[in-house]
């Protein structure tokens, strides 16, 4: 075979070029219980439903939740700590959602604590994930300690979730400051808005929150009982097509994908809504 050569070419499965790597978005808030996990699951499902590949990553190490919210809790073998420490491949740690094509969950570890990972681990992990998925959504734990540091490492963008309450807004402000310090300009979701309370002057409006925080809004989500029902069964609120929260998350997903024709819909006081019904029953409707 002198004079000839054998040429081996590796053809990548990946359609995407080096310049078209995945985008990492961290979902954070400071305060717990404001809807980070709900938002991560819903946006993950919505973005995947729009045809992208998505990995949602539970960074609440020691207190995992995203798996039950997504109804994938009985399929966990490896977790994010295993993956970050090289004990498994992305393919092994990423649980494929059988209901929505292109959606994957990388669960948190339940037995470690937040110091099981450091920012170097996270830089490596996000780099790896960018090669495999179009979008990587990081579900950040509450607080501003190691778990937060880890979650924002490697993030290109951030979504801050906030409820219209004094404590949540104050914590959001703190988080926004920390994100700016890392050169990330966050966008804001105001979650759990109760329109009749806003109308009655008993709840901060999204405008108030936006005013105080002065950051760009990416979506508004109403308080919606069906979110809780969806969580009960481990299904996605975006698949409940008539639910307001589901519709809101789908709109946010489209905006994340860069569709400028999707306006932010302001929640309106709906007399037929559950919260309206409750108030009229108690006779406090104005």
């Amino acid at each position: 075979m002198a004079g000839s050569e054998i040429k081996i070419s590796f053809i990548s499965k990946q359609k995407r070029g080096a310049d078209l790597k995945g985008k990492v978005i961290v979902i954070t808030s400071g305060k717990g219980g404001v809807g980070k996990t709900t938002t991560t699951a819903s946006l993950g499902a919505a973005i995947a439903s729009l045809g992208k590949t998505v990995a949602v990553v539970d960074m609440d190490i020691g207190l995992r939740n995203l798996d039950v919210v997504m109804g994938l809790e009985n399929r966990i073998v490896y977790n994010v700590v295993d993956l970050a420490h090289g004990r498994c491949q992305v393919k092994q740690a990423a649980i494929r959602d059988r209901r929505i094509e292109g959606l994957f969950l990388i669960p948190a570890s339940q037995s470690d604590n937040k110091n099981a990972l450091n920012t170097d681990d996270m830089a490596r992990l996000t780099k790896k994930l960018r090669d495999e998925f179009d979008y990587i959504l990081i579900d950040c734990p509450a607080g501003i300690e190691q778990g937060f540091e880890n979650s924002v490492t490697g993030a290109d963008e951030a979504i801050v979730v906030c409820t219209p309450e004094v404590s949540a807004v104050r914590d959001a402000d703190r988080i926004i400051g920390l994100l700016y310090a890392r050169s990330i300009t966050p966008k804001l979701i105001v979650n759990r808005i109760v329109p009749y309370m806003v109308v009655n002057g008993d709840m901060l409006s999204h405008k108030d929150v936006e005013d105080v925080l002065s950051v760009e809004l990416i979506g508004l989500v109403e308080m919606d009982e069906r979110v809780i029902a969806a969580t009960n069964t481990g299904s996605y609120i975006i698949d409940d097509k008539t639910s307001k929260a589901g519709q809101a998350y789908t709109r946010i997903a489209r905006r994340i994908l860069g569709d400028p024709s999707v306006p932010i819909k302001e929640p309106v006081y709906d007399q037929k809504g559950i919260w309206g019904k409750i108030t009229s029953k108690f006779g406090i409707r104005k």
Partner: protein
Amino acid sequence: MKNGFFGKIFGTGKESTRDIAKKRLQFALIYDKLEVSDEILESLQKDIVDVISKYFEIDKSSLKLDIERQDDLSALVLNTPILSAKRKFG
């Protein structure tokens, strides 16, 4: 809360809890950043009023403290109607 600095900002208690929440937040964020307290702001306000009073007649009852926010900057703004300039200082 009613006696302190806030009492003066909030006036007669006609505000909705929503308005109160917003004002509290705006001030809480200022306090957090400057690491100042109610008391310090109150005595600052008093000093400012004293200085202005040296030169102008002002309506002390309609002093208004507000927060203006632009981009990532918060400004504490004291508004006071000036009734007239004083001819002589002191």
